[in-house]
């Protein structure tokens, strides 16, 4: 197979900005005074100095009643209860695992928060502690839900549902957390032949279609032996490239945008999608379609 090499100079960078001319809300930059009145409560991204309320990040102001906060464009993932996340096991400790979720601090997955293989519901015994490694090892990918947030910001995860658990064959994609739109469900089965998990922490997992009705064993089993057919691989690849394109142009990622992007991308071959111009092209077209819907 012949392979194409693309060599690009930094000076030939493609402008990935696809901003539209819209009205801009007021942007605040660090050190800028938001308001001088002190009846407001301070939220995230603000601090008080000399009786004035000042912004500490660059972003847009949010006001809920009299709570003012400034939301930055990008930041590390700040977990909230009920979020779906995709994470990687970094450590196996006594009675718990440490999971890297692209947040400030590593999240914790307690032994008591997972479904034991076999679906048993029993007290965790000492043997289970020894067998932790057999369930999840360092380097494994899991999908989980945030159970609670500790006082220092550490997230506590649980996988107490058949939907969550160890992840098998698929593609992991990391984007900025702020690009993932909050929606009701983060597990999508795309009609194009792949399913996607949009973790709130910016980790996106693309895999072949999950059949929920499968005799799942609580998600601890990785189906690494089954051979995924070529076509599915291609669609997975294409979806990955589309999401990458959207991320590069800083567009919000949710099921609709992915689908549109996928459709727009059909005119390119999967490999061509990696070329920056193609990415920008898709993104612009997707944006166009999305805006048409809004109208």
């Amino acid at each position, binding site marked *: 197979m012949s392979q194409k090499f693309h060599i690009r100079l930094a000076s030939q960078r493609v402008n990935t900005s*696809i901003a539209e001319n819209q009205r801009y809300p007021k942007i605040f930059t660090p050190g800028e005074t938001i308001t001088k009145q002190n009846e407001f409560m301070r939220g995230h991204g603000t601090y008080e100095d000399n009786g004035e309320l000042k912004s500490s990040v*660059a972003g847009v102001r949010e006001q809920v009643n009299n709570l003012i906060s400034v939301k930055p464009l990008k*930041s590390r993932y700040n977990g909230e209860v009920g979020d779906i996340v995709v994470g990687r096991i970094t450590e196996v400790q006594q009675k718990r695992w440490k999971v890297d979720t692209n947040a*400030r601090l590593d999240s914790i997955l307690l032994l008591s928060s997972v479904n034991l293989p076999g679906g048993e519901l029993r007290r965790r015994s000492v043997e289970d502690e020894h067998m932790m490694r057999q369930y999840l090892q360092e380097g494994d990918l899991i999908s989980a839900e945030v159970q609670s947030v500790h006082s220092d910001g550490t997230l506590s995860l649980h996988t107490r549902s058949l939907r969550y658990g160890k992840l098998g064959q698929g593609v992991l994609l990391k984007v900025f957390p702020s690009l993932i739109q909050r929606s009701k469900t983060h597990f999508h089965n795309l009609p194009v032949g792949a399913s996607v998990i949009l973790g709130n922490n910016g980790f996106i997992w693309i895999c072949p279609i999950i059949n929920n009705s499968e005799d799942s064993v609580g998600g601890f089993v990785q189906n690494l032996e089954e051979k995924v057919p070529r076509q599915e691989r291609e669609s997975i690849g294409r979806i990955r490239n589309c999401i990458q394109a959207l991320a590069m142009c800083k567009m919000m990622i949710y099921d609709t945008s992915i689908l549109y992007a996928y459709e727009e991308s059909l005119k390119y071959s999967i490999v061509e999608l990696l070329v920056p111009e193609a990415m920008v092209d898709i993104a612009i077209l997707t944006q166009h379609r*999305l805006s048409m819907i809004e109208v």
Partner: protein
Amino acid sequence: MSKKELLSKIGLRLDGRRAHELRRIRCKLGVFTEPDGSAYMEQGLTKVLAAVYGPHQVRGSKSKAQHDNVVINCQFSMAVFSTTDRKKRPRGDRKSTELSMHLQQALESVIKTELYPWSQIDVYVEVLHADGGIYPACVNAATLALIDAGIPLKEYVCACTASLANNDVPMVDISHQEEVLGGPTLTIAALPMSGKIVLMEMSQRFHLDHLDKVMNKALQGCKDIRRILDEAVRLHVRDVGSATGWALAT
């Protein structure tokens, strides 16, 4: 040997600027996709890249983690091709270590460290072309990268150099040629809006009488730089924000 005048009789410097003018500044945020925040800054011919990772779990020894503050880890390095003579060691030599420490000092004063106990923020700065004023360019680039990463700051920290020409006229933003030919160079890192000075450093000596005016010139330079950086940040936020459809605002 021709003795070059740093400031000619008409008031122009060696490169055609006047004494109070800064060099051309160009900057861009979000140049990398991997780090949480990144920025590229050009001040004259000096080019600097900054990348910020964090805040994240403290890597390495747990003992480094502090219970009430975030640990800031700075690393400064110069590319081997950044100076006229190829540098043998890009990092780890005395100058790099010293500048890393200075950078850390400057950033610590402005990052709201109390928000992130047990975490660590990494700042990496790389100089691609050194033409005078490396430290200020690094500080400015690091500020932009931090803002890009969404880390809360008290305000911008900007840095600028100033020097004396003809022994009595202060000049701002010194290029490499002027540094070599001229006299002492004063570097100031400050918080322009509140006027607080974070770091002050001088290369040679000059008489106390001159300190005031040189310092004021440098502070003015910092203020001017802040305005330019602010512009750049707003532009960037606008771009990205509108691309995301301002979904964040809702």
